[in-house]
C-alpha cells in the first residue's frame, strides 16, 4: 500500500502547564462512557426495584390455569404465573442449540483449520456470516414463515387435509432462531480456535497424527471454553428475541404446555410484549409486568455475563500464548 500516513494539517504538540484541552477531552469521553453505563444500571435497577416484590417462587412456578383447568387472568398480578413461558422459552432455546452449535462449530473449524484466509470462498463465507448477523430480526420471522412453515412444512403436509407441519410450531421457531444465531456461534468458536497456539497443532502433526485427529483430539478440547461461550451467547440472544417467533410459533395463550414439536408455545419475551401493550388495566398489570421483565433480564444477562467471563479468560490465554 502506497497511501501516505494521515497527516493532519497542523500538529501543535507544545506542552503547557495545565492542559485544559486534554482535561476536557478526557472528561467528555469519560462522561460518555459513564453515561452509557448509567443507563444500563438505571434499566436494571428500575426493573429490580419494581419487580422484586412480585418476583416470588410462587410467581415462577405457577401456570396460567387453575387446578380445575380454568384460565387465569394473565394481567392480574395476584394469580398469574410465568412457568409455562419459562418452559416454552427454555424448550425453544434448547432445540435451537441442537441445530446451531454443530453447524456453527464445523463452519468455524473450516474457517480456521482448512480455509485459505485469502481465498475467494473464504471471503464469501465470512461476508455471509457478517451479513447474516445484520439481517433484521423481523426478516428472520418472515423467512421462518415463508421457508420453514409454508415451504418445508407445506411440502411435508402434502396429501394431508389439515396442516400438521405447515403451521406455527416450536420446531419452526427454534430453527428460525438457529439461523439467526449462527453467526454468534461461528465468531465465538473461531476466536477460541485462533487463540490456540500453532505449536500445539504442529506438535500433534509431528507426532504422526492426521489433520482430522489433531482437530478432534487436540484443537477442539482446547477450544471448548470458546465453543461454550458461543453457545451461551446464542442462548442469551435467542432467549430474549421476540420478532422472529411472532409468526413462527409463539402463542398469545395456551392451556397446555407444548408436548410435540408441532405445538405452539408461550414465551417469556412475547409475554412481556403482551403484558405491556394489551393489558386492559396497566396499573394492575404493572407488578407482574416488571416481575416478568426481571425474569427475562435475569435469564439473558446472567448468560451474557457468563459468556463475557469465559471469553475474558480465553483472551487472556491468547495473549499469554502468543
Amino acid at each position, binding site marked *: 500500500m502506497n497511501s501516505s500516513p*494521515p497527516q493532519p494539517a497542523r500538529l501543535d*504538540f507544545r506542552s503547557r502547564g495545565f492542559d485544559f484541552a486534554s482535561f476536557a477531552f478526557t472528561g467528555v469521553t469519560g462522561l460518555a462512557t459513564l453515561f452509557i453505563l448509567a443507563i444500563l444500571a438505571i*434499566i436494571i435497577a428500575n426493573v429490580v426495584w419494581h419487580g422484586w416484590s412480585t418476583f416470588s417462587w410462587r410467581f415462577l412456578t405457577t401456570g396460567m390455569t387453575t387446578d380445575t383447568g380454568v384460565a387465569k387472568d394473565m394481567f392480574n398480578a395476584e394469580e398469574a404465573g410465568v412457568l409455562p413461558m419459562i418452559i416454552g422459552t427454555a424448550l425453544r432455546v434448547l432445540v435451537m442449540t441442537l441445530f446451531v452449535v454443530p453447524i456453527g462449530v464445523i463452519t468455524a473449524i*473450516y474457517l480456521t483449520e*482448512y480455509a485459505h484466509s485469502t481465498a475467494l470462498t473464504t471471503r464469501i463465507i465470512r461476508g455471509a456470516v457478517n451479513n447474516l448477523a445484520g*439481517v*433484521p430480526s423481523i426478516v428472520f420471522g418472515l*423467512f421462518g414463515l415463508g421457508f420453514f412453515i409454508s415451504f418445508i412444512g407445506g411440502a411435508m403436509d402434502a396429501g394431508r387435509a389439515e396442516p400438521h407441519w405447515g403451521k406455527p410450531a416450536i420446531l419452526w421457531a427454534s430453527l428460525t432462531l438457529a439461523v439467526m444465531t449462527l453467526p454468534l456461534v461461528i465468531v465465538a468458536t473461531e476466536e477460541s480456535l485462533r487463540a490456540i497456539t500453532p505449536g500445539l497443532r504442529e506438535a500433534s502433526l509431528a507426532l504422526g497424527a492426521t489433520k482430522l485427529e489433531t482437530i478432534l483430539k487436540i484443537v477442539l478440547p482446547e477450544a471448548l471454553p470458546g465453543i461454550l461461550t458461543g453457545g451461551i451467547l446464542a442462548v442469551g440472544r435467542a432467549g430474549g*428475541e421476540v420478532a422472529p417467533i411472532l409468526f413462527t410459533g409463539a402463542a398469545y395463550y395456551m392451556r397446555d404446555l407444548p408436548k410435540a414439536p408441532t405445538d405452539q408455545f408461550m414465551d417469556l419475551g412475547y409475554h412481556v410484549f403482551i403484558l405491556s401493550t394489551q393489558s386492559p388495566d396497566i396499573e394492575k398489570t404493572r407488578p407482574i409486568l416488571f416481575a416478568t421483565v426481571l425474569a427475562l433480564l435475569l435469564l439473558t444477562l446472567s448468560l*451474557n455475563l457468563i459468556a463475557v467471563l469465559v471469553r475474558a479468560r480465553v483472551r487472556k490465554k491468547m495473549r499469554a500464548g502468543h
Partner: protein
Amino acid sequence: MTNAPHNAKRTVGWMGIHRGHKARPAEWLAEKFIFLVSLTAILMVFLIFVFVAREALPLVLGRMNSAAARPAISMAEFDQLKPADQQLYLELTPAEFKRMDKEALHSLVEVRLEEAKEAPKDKDAKVNTTEWRYLFGAHEWSDSRPEDRYVWQPIGRIHKYNLWPLIIGSLKTTAVALLFSVPLAIAAAIYVSQLSSPTLKEWLKPAIELLSGVPSVVLGFFGLIVMATFLQGVFGYQSRLNAFVAGIALGLAVIPVVFSIAEDALTSVPRSYTQAALALGASKWQAAWQIVLPAAAPGVFAAVVLGFGRAIGETMVVLMASGNASIMSLSLFDSTRSITATIAAELAEAVFGGHHYRMLFLIGAMLFIVTFLTNLAGDLIMHRLKGRLEGRTK
C-alpha cells in the same frame, strides 16, 4: 507428512491421488463434509432473500389486484381465453389451476360476476392499489380526507398501501437513534480504547457490551413504560409515544453495535502511531484525536453504517414505543409507524397469500435489501481498513 513434495496441495487427496500422500479416504470425506457444512451461512443468506422475495413476487410482477371492484367477464368470454389467461384472471397458482376441473372454474367465474354486480360504484373502486404508482405516488382517495394523499391503511373498503408514511417513520426513528447513540458510542470507544488504563478497559468493555445482552423487547418495555412518561415530563409534548421516544430507546440498542465496531477499529490502529506521537511531545488526547481517530476513520464510519442497519431493522422497540399511527408527518413528536413495526403488527391479521400478506413480504424484502447493502458496505470498509493498517506495519 515429512515426505510431502513442496507443491503439495493443502487438501488431502482421495485414495492417495496426490503422490506422496497416504490413502486417507476418511480424512478426505471429513474435509469435504466440513467444507459443505461451512457453506450453510451462504445458503441461509441466499434462502432468506429468495423466500422473502418469493412471497412478494406476484405483487412485483403485477399479478395481484386489490381493487374493491375487479373487472369481470362473462362465462362465454372466459371459455374463449387460453388456459394461462384463465389462470391469471382467477388469480390462481398453476398447481391450484391444474387441480380444478371445468365446473370448479366456472363456479369461480360466477362468484366473480356476482361480486362485480354488488361492487361499489365510486371512482376508486376499480383502482388496483398494489400498483407501483399507488405505492409511491400521491392519490386523493374518495373515502379519506383530501389532505391524506399518502396513506398506509390496509383495512376497510379500499386497501391503501402508500409506503411513504412507513419509510418516513422508519427514517425518523433511525435518525433520532443515530443522533443520540453515535456521539455517545464513539466517545466511549475513544475513551475505552485510547485513554483509559488497561485494567479499567478490562472492566469497561464487557460492561458496555452487556447492554447488547438486554433484549430489545425489554428496551421497548422500558421506552414504553418508563422513558415515555419521563421524557414527556421533561419536554412536554402532546403525544406520549412518538418517534422521539422510540428513537431514544432504539439508540440504546444501537450503542453496543457502534461501540464495539468503533472500538475494534480504533484498537487495530498500531500502537506505534500513538507512541510516535507521544514521543514527539503530544498529549494522550492529541494522539487519540489527531493521529488514531483519522487513521481509524473508515472503521468509525463503518460503525455508523452498521448502526444504521441495526436501527432501521429493529422491531420490538419501535413497535412498543412509537405509538404506531401511520401519520405522514415530519415532526419527531408525532406518533409514527415504522416498516418493521408494520410487519410485526399486521402479518398475523393478513389473509395468507392475499395482497396485504404479500405487501408485508414486499416491504420485508426491501428492508432486507437495505440492510444487506449496509452490511456489505460496513464489512468491506472494515476489511480494507484492517488490511491497510496491518499491511503497513508488516
